């Protein structure tokens, strides 16, 4: 029995992770809305990335095909990209001077 314990525990863990991360349409919608909001922030900073738009489009396409796992993952990736572009714009407000010819 003692030998079976880790096996059972692993099976439970795998089973729970599968159930926990299977994305629904609602998950996708929430992830997409968050990504869009982050990209709007980047737009306000005049610093959107083309890859954010492309990843958002890929998320939409997967959702339309009914693959919400893939769609949610893409939307989360788009959000990460949008946030990185906003971070870049903010940090460059002062960092650009490092490169200036003096």
């Amino acid at each position, binding site marked *: 029995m003692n030998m079976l314990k880790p096996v059972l525990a692993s099976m439970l863990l795998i089973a729970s992770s599968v159930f926990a*991360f299977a994305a629904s349409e609602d998950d996708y919608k929430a992830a997409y809305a968050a990504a869009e909001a982050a990209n709007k922030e980047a737009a306000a900073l*005049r*610093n*959107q*990335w*083309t*890859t954010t*738009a492309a990843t958002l489009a890929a998320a939409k396409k997967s959702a339309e095909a009914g693959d919400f*796992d893939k769609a*949610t*993952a893409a939307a*989360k*990736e788009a959000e*990460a*990209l949008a*946030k*990185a*572009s906003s*971070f*870049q*714009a903010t*940090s*460059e407000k*002062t*960092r*650009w*001077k*490092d*490169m*200036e*010819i*003096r």
Partner: protein
Amino acid sequence: MRLTSAIPFASAALALAALTFAAPAPAADTVDPVKDAKAFQKFFTDKFPKVKLEDFVNGPYSMNEDLHKQWEEKEQFPPYEFSLEMGKEMFSKPFKNGKSYEDCFPNKGVGIRQNYPYFDEKEGKVVTLELALNRCREANGEPAFSYVKDEMAALTAYMAFTSRGKPMDIKIPSDPRALEAYEKGKEYFYTRRGQLNFSCATCHVQSPGERIRAEVLAPALGILNAMPIYRSEWSGMGTISRRFTSCNSQIRGVPLKPQDDEYRNLEYYLSYVSNGLPISGPGARP
């Protein structure tokens, strides 16, 4: 979390960490365009001691002897010739109201390219040649042209041709808004953007003469003096607006609209620091 979705997060986190721990910026100092232009030109002449100051306007063709030979051969049958002819014809053709471009510009538009862009104190903004051309059209009841190619490239090609050899002569009037526009243009030039985290300076200050894939990067000094250009890569002519927007796309940044304030300021800065170098447009590039 799945591995596929974990990878982008991890890479984004790493990128953010790299940006966070990078060197801090030096303190801000006063804006001195004259000093800037001197330092800018010295940087390039020190970096390329064999290239004459006036030759920087030939972009990648100034970077080594082989490329220079290519440029000389290209100039025998320049690919921008059709556009130049078209621009000349368009320039003299009257609008429907009987007026023409000549009525919108000093000296009837001939030999004035070197004075653009200028700071319009009435408007409080930079006015580029492309913008002035479209404003001229609209003021005379004609629709505006696309800023990036074809007709706009043809018109600016002709105007540049009439200024060939004249030194770039951009003025910064004693108006704090003009100085601000210049400084904002400088900021844009050195600001990293796009997913590739490149600024204009990454390619055109840090790496001129180097290859980026099959292309030889042009020095920033005199880069606008040759505009508009025929680019083999584009299979056609392109304006300054086209150059700016396509540079942004290439580094995976969403380009702004042509003639947005940022691009107007950038053109102002980049032209000012090339003051004294001859107008060589229209040009041809690989």
